[in-house]
């Protein structure tokens, strides 16, 4: 898999030219992801609560619904990270901060490894986030979760939002012109 390089510092760029992403940048990306996850969860919870409030349910049923809600939240959080890491290697937060999670061989994570990294993330956070602090002392800026799942976090500069939007518009305009031509060539 081909990787791109961003303007890295000399210390965090290995001889092959790959730059690794540091703790603070990853923290900001995680905060963006957490905000997204909780925003979606909040909207869904508000909707579900409104619907449930219409019915007069006994308290034990409400407790069951709350438990199901908590389980759904956990599944949603795990699914979010596993889905994005295994699909593109980037969560939306990673994309904003322009880095990517890959295996130590430079390949995209498979769902099983993404799930392992997700679990390792919890383990790294448990001892007062000490697992994340390993990032500061590792040459490849790997935290405990990266060591356990054998992954690395590398810089992945992408298109700016404005440029991406411009390209999307151009592509859709080209498609529209193409379909018009096709319609003219093969009139119904």
């Amino acid at each position: 898999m081909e990787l791109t390089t961003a303007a890295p510092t000399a210390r965090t760029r290995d001889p092959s030219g790959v730059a690794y992403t540091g703790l603070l940048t990853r923290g900001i990306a995680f905060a963006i992801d957490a905000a997204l996850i909780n925003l979606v969860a909040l909207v869904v919870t508000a909707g579900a609560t409104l619907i449930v409030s219409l019915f007069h349910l006994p308290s034990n049923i409400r407790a069951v619904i709350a438990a199901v809600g908590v389980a759904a939240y956990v599944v949603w959080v795990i699914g979010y990270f596993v889905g994005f890491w295994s699909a593109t290697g980037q969560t939306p937060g990673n994309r904003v901060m322009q880095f990517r999670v890959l295996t130590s061989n430079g390949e995209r994570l498979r769902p099983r490894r993404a799930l392992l990294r997700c679990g390792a993330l919890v383990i790294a956070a448990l001892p007062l986030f000490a697992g994340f602090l390993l990032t500061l002392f590792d040459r490849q800026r790997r935290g405990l979760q990266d060591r356990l799942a054998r992954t690395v976090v590398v810089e992945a500069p992408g298109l700016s939002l404005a440029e991406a939007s411009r390209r999307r518009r151009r592509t859709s305009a080209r498609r529209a012109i193409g379909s018009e031509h096709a319609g003219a060539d093969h009139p119904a």
Partner: protein
Amino acid sequence: MSALGTRVVVASLRPLGGVAGAAVDAAVTVERYATARVLDSPELERILVSAVESPRVQAAVKRALVSDGVRDIVTAVFESGLFDLIAERLLASEALWHLVDEIAASPAVTAAITQQGLGFADQVGEEVRTRSRSADDWLERAAWRLVHRRTPTPRRGTEGLRPGPP
């Protein structure tokens, strides 16, 4: 007797009237044809272009524009309140506001506003990214100083990773 003479004259002139009418129709047709030919001909365009590009015409126009007479006319037009009236009528016109609404809702305008917003978001994002990476480096240097170890040197640990085009 005189009535009879009049009838004779009218009868004798009737064919002449028809001829005159036909002659007028033919003349109008020829005139229209000639006008159309002149307007369609490249000669007219050439004459107009050479007239506009002529240094004498340009100098004359320049002289006219800086003359006091033109200034007086322009001042008189503005002082007449004509433009105030036009502006007042335009602002009172429903069609103008409809046009403004149409322009504001047009895809080109919305795309330009979106582009501007995205450009700003890009700028903010770029600034955050740059600063966070600087902070990463600073944090690592501080951490390494804290544990009295040398700054780590890069090592080749990911043979599968290699740089490439975006």
